[in-house]
C-alpha cells in the first residue's frame, strides 16, 4: 500500500465523567479518501480536533513523518499539512476571497510600512480557483458567495498551505445535489493530485461514492474498518449501531390520553418548501430524532413563536391556537426548553429566584409590583421539587453546574401550567446523575398529562426515553416509529431519508 502520511495510535480523551475517545487508532495513506462515520456523539469531531491540534489527547501518540508527538499544536498540525474545511464555514464575509485564503499569512510590500500586497495574493489565488473549477474571481467578496462556493474558498485555502490531508466535516449538509456532485468531483481531483481527504458524513451514499476506505466510530471507539469492496449501506449501519437500548425505558403509568398537540402542515422559515406534520398525545413522550440540521430545532422554535411559522396550523385538543410570539405560546401552555440554556434559557447573571419566575412574574405581582414573599415561595418550591443543589435561591445561575442550570430552566416552566412541552437536547452537557433525574421528571410530567416532544441527537436517549419516535429528514417528518419498531437501525434509516416502508420491512 501507499505511503502512510500520519498515524494516530491508541488515542484516548477523557473528560470528567465521559470517555470521549477510547483507544482509537487511525492512519491515513497518501492520496486516499478516508470515510469517517458514526452517530452523533461517536467521537468523530473530537478525534479530528485532536488531529488539528485543538485539543490534547489524554493518552496515545500521533506519528507524523517519522516523529512522535504526545499532542499537536495548531501550528504543528498546519505545518504537517493538515487542513480543515469546516461544517460551519470560518470565513470572513467582509473580506474578499484572496484575503480569506491568506488570512494570517498576508503577503506584504513596502518594507517597513508592511502594506498588504493584494495584487500578489490575488495572483496566487487565481490558479487555485481555476484548478477547483470555481467561476468567481479572487477579488469577490465572500459575502456574495454561496455556501458551495465558500467551501471551494476553504479548499483553496487548504491548497495554498500545501495541505496533504484535508478534513471535511459534513461538507454537503447545506449543498444542493448538483453542488454535492461538483464537490465529489473536486475530491476526486484532489485525490488524483496525491492529496488525502478525510470525509466525515452522515450521508452514506456519498461515502459509497467517494471513499476508498471507511472507519466507523461508536461511543468513542473504532468499531470497524471497511475496504472499498466491502462497502454497503447495510454493513456501515450495522457497525454504527449495536446496543440494546430499549431496556432503559420507563413505561408510562397509563396509555396516552386522547387529545394533545397536532402540528399540521407547519412551514418553518428554515425550510420554506417543506411541511411538517406531527402529533403528540397528552401523556406521551415523543422523541424527535434526526441528523443535526434536519429541522427539529426550527420546528420547536416555530411552535413556540420564536420564528413564527410561515404557514400551517397548531392545534391543541383539536382547537387551533394562534402562536405568533413566545407570549402567545406560553399563554397556550406551550413551553420550550431551548437547546442552548446559557444563551436562551437563563439570564446567567440573575439569581436562581429571578430566573425561575422570569416567565410568570405577573402572577406574583400586585399592580405590577413584585411580591417578594410570593416569589421566594415559588422559587423555593421549584428548587425543592427539582432537587436543585444550591445553598440559596439568591445565587446567580452562572455558578451552577450544567445539570442544575437545566433544572432551573425547567423550574421556570413547571411553576406554570404546561400542556405541551418541547425539550431541545435536554441533557446536553449534563452529567449522568442529573440526566436520569431529568428523564424521571419528564416521565412524571407526561404522567400528569403533559404532551412532551423531546428533541435529541443522543440515540441512547431517544430510544431509551421515548414512547414513540418521529424522525425528521431535511425539514419534514420522514417517519414515526412505535416501540416495537424501535432500533438504531430504523431511526438511522429514516434520518438519512430512506422510506418508511423500508423500515416497516426491516422491523422485527
Amino acid at each position: 500500500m501507499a505511503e502512510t502520511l500520519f498515524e494516530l495510535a491508541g488515542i484516548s480523551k477523557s473528560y470528567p465523567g465521559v470517555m470521549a475517545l477510547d483507544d482509537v487508532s487511525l492512519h491515513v495513506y497518501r492520496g486516499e479518501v478516508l470515510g469517517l462515520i458514526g452517530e452523533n456523539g461517536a467521537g468523530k469531531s473530537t478525534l479530528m480536533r485532536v488531529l488539528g491540534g485543538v485539543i490534547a489527547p489524554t493518552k496515545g501518540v500521533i506519528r507524523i513523518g517519522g516523529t512522535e508527538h504526545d499532542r499537536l499544536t495548531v501550528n504543528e498540525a498546519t505545518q504537517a499539512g493538515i487542513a480543515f474545511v469546516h461544517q460551519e464555514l470560518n470565513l470572513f464575509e467582509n473580506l474578499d476571497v484572496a484575503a480569506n485564503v491568506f488570512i494570517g499569512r498576508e503577503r506584504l510590500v513596502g518594507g517597513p510600512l508592511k502594506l498588504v500586497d493584494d495584487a500578489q495574493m490575488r495572483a496566487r489565488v487565481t490558479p487555485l480557483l481555476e484548478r477547483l473549477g470555481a467561476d468567481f474571481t479572487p477579488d469577490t467578496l465572500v459575502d456574495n458567495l454561496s455556501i458551495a462556493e465558500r467551501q471551494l474558498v476553504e479548499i483553496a485555502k487548504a491548497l495554498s498551505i500545501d495541505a496533504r490531508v484535508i478534513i471535511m466535516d459534513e461538507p454537503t449538509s447545506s449543498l444542493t445535489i448538483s453542488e454535492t456532485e461538483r464537490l465529489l468531483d473536486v475530491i476526486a481531483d484532489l485525490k488524483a493530485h496525491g492529496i488525502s481527504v478525510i470525509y466525515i458524513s452522515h450521508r452514506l451514499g456519498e461515502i459509497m461514492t467517494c471513499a476508498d476506505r471507511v472507519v466507523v466510530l461508536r461511543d468513542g471507539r473504532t468499531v470497524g474498518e471497511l475496504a472499498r469492496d466491502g462497502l454497503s449501506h447495510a454493513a456501515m449501519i450495522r457497525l454504527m449501531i449495536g446496543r440494546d437500548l430499549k431496556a432503559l425505558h420507563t413505561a408510562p403509568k397509563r396509555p396516552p390520553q386522547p387529545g394533545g398537540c397536532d402540528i399540521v402542515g407547519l412551514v418553518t422559515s428554515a425550510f420554506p418548501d417543506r411541511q411538517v406534520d406531527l402529533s403528540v398525545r397528552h401523556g406521551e413522550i415523543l422523541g424527535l430524532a434526526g441528523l443535526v440540521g434536519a429541522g427539529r430545532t426550527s420546528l420547536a422554535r416555530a411552535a413556540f413563536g420564536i420564528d413564527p411559522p410561515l404557514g400551517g396550523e397548531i392545534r391543541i385538543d383539536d382547537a387551533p391556537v394562534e402562536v405568533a410570539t413566545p407570549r402567545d405560546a406560553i399563554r397556550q401552555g406551550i413551553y420550550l426548553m431551548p437547546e442552548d440554556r446559557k444563551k436562551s434559557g437563563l439570564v446567567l447573571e440573575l439569581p436562581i429566584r429571578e430566573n425561575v419566575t422570569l416567565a410568570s412574574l405577573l402572577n406574583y405581582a400586585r399592580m405590577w409590583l413584585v411580591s417578594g414573599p410570593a416569589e421566594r415561595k415559588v422559587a423555593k418550591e421549584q428548587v425543592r421539587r427539582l432537587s436543585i443543589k444550591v445553598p440559596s435561591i439568591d445565587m446567580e445561575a452562572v455558578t451552577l453546574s450544567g445539570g442544575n442550570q437545566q433544572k432551573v430552566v425547567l423550574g421556570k416552566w413547571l411553576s406554570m401550567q404546561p400542556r405541551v412541552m418541547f425539550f431541545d437536547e435536554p441533557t446536553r452537557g449534563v452529567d449522568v446523575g442529573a440526566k436520569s433525574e431529568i428523564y424521571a421528571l419528564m416521565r412524571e410530567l407526561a404522567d400528569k398529562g403533559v404532551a412532551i416532544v423531546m428533541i435529541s441527537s443522543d440515540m441512547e436517549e431517544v430510544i431509551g426515553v421515548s414512547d414513540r419516535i418521529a424522525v425528521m429528514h431535511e425539514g419534514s417528518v420522514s417517519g414515526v416509529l412505535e416501540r416495537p419498531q424501535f432500533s438504531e437501525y430504523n431511526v438511522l434509516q429514516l434520518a438519512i431519508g430512506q422510506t418508511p416502508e423500508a423500515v416497516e420491512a426491516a422491523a422485527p
Partner: protein
Amino acid sequence: MNKKELGLGLLLLVISAVTGVINPAFLSLVNLLNMANLIGLFGVFALGEGLVIITGGIDLSLGSMFALLGVVFIDLLTTYQVPWPLALLVVLLGGLLLGAIQGFLVTRLKMQPFIVTLCGLLIYRGAARYYTSDSTRGFGYGDEAATLSSIASGHVAGIPNTFILLIILALVLGMLLHRSVYGRWLYAVGKNEEAARFSGINTNMVIATAYIISGGLAGVSTVLFVFYTNSVSPSSFGNFYELYAIAAAVLGGCSLRGGEGSILGIVLGTALLQVLQNLVNILGIPNSLNFAVMGTVILIGVLADHQLQARRRRKMALAGLARTAPRSAFEGQQGAAPRGVDALPARTGDQA
C-alpha cells in the same frame, strides 16, 4: 444599598469633607443649596438616560431635545400666549413622542441606539435653530408663566424644588426599576435579550418604554432648565448635557453593556459630578480644567470598579471550576466543535 453605591456614597462624603476643610465656603448653606439645585436639574434626565443604558442602549439626543422643546415652549407662552398648563402638556407630550419615535426605530426597525439618537441629536438641534432663525428666545417682561416659573425655580423650606422633584422621581422610578415587574424585565432584557424573549417577555415593548420614559423626563428637564436660564439660545442650550447624564449613569454603576445599574447609583453619580464642578470653582482650580477633572474621576472610578469585578469573577470562576461540566465530549454540540478547530491555541484552554 449594595457595595458599589456604598463606595460611591463614601467617595462623595470624603471629597466633600476634604473640600470643606480646605475651603469652608464649600459647606456653607448657600453653596449646598446651590449644588442641590444643580443636582436636581441634572439628575432628572440622568434617571431616564440610566434606564436606556440598562437596556444596553444609549440616548445621545437629550441636550438637543432640550433646545427644541425649549424654544417651542417659550414660543407657545410668549408668541402664542398659550396658557401655561397647555404649554407644559405640549412639551411633556413632545418629549414622550420623540422618545417613542427613537424607541420605535431601535426596536422595530432594529437600528443601533447610538446612530438613532446621534441623528436625533443633529436633527433636533437643527430644527430648533431653524425654527428660531438661530435667535435666542426668552421671556418678555410679562409674567406669562409666573406660577409655573415659581414652581420650577422656587423652593420649599429653603430646599430647591428641582431637588425635591428629583427625589420624588427617584423614588417613583426606584419602585419601577427595583420593585416592579417592568424593572425585572428591564434588567433581564439588558443582560440577555434572547433568554428574556424565550421567557415570553415582549422585549421590544420593554426597550421602547425605556426610551419613552427618557423622552418624557427630557420634557420635564426642558421646563426646569428654561426657568433656570430664563431664555433659550437654540445653538447652545443643553449642549453636551446628554454626556453629563451618561457620565452620571456610568459613574453610578450602569454598564454600557446593559443590565446593570440602580436609581440610587445614578443619583449619587449626578451628585458627585456636580460636587466636582463646584469644587473646581471653590478651590480656585482654573475653570478650564473643569472637564478634565470630571473625566479623570470617571476614568478612575470605572477602572476601579472594573478591577474589583474582574477579581470577583476570577473568584467565582475558581469556585465554579470544580463543578463545570465538560465542555462537551459530544459531537452533537456541532455549534461549538467546528469553530473550536480553528481556534487559537490560547483559546483552547477552556476546552481542555
